[in-house]
């Protein structure tokens, strides 16, 4: 299943790209699954997703937890620091 993923801040820097369309295996069902899969896919993924506790996600524009199902465009990023 093709999935649009975008990266922000140091996740984007470590991945070397801002967004991509990926096609993860069928058993990648949740945000946590996706992060785990990206961390093993290649070296930049290993660097960006070495510590899943430091990764946040949004799906279809809403902030979600690691258990959320991948039913829309995914954004992966560090904890936010605005304001």
């Amino acid at each position, binding site marked *: 299943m093709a999935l649009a993923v975008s990266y922000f801040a140091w996740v984007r820097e470590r991945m070397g790209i801002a967004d991509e369309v990926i096609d993860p295996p069928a058993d990648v069902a949740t945000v946590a699954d996706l992060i785990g899969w990206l961390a093993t896919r290649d070296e930049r993924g290993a660097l960006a997703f070495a510590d899943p506790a430091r990764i946040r996600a949004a799906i279809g524009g809403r902030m979600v937890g690691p258990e959320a199902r991948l039913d829309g465009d995914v954004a992966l990023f560090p904890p936010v620091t*605005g304001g």
Partner: protein
Amino acid sequence: MIRVAVQADAIDVAVELDIHDAGGHGASAIFVGRVRGDDGLAELFLEHHPALTQAGLAALAHVAADRWSLSALTLVHRVGGMAPGETIVLVLASSAHRAEALAATEFLIDRLKTDVMLWKRETFADGRVAWVEPRDGDHDRAERWD
């Protein structure tokens, strides 16, 4: 009137006050957050999401407008590169009652820091570059409003 803006241009507090003030409200609470120049900071860069940053700010503004009795609300966040002393964020909340204006302002500035897709990157005079880490205190303050 709710006004929410995400902009690369400098934030002009006096202009925003003029826009906001149309109604002659009883009380206005205002918060201005600026780039601090300590520790040899040369530039602060604010990364944002092209759509979700604005949507996140607008959602917060509507939560505040539902929770407190406000006559006007302005929320402006700057993005991109900025120098020490420049304004990062402006919150303006007006109400017939001061407690409502003050509480809404504090809520917005607290939740801005934990709920909206914005990331700070610091460049120092010595060339060092670092992404800002969130502080535990920010989450504690944001959770007071849950």
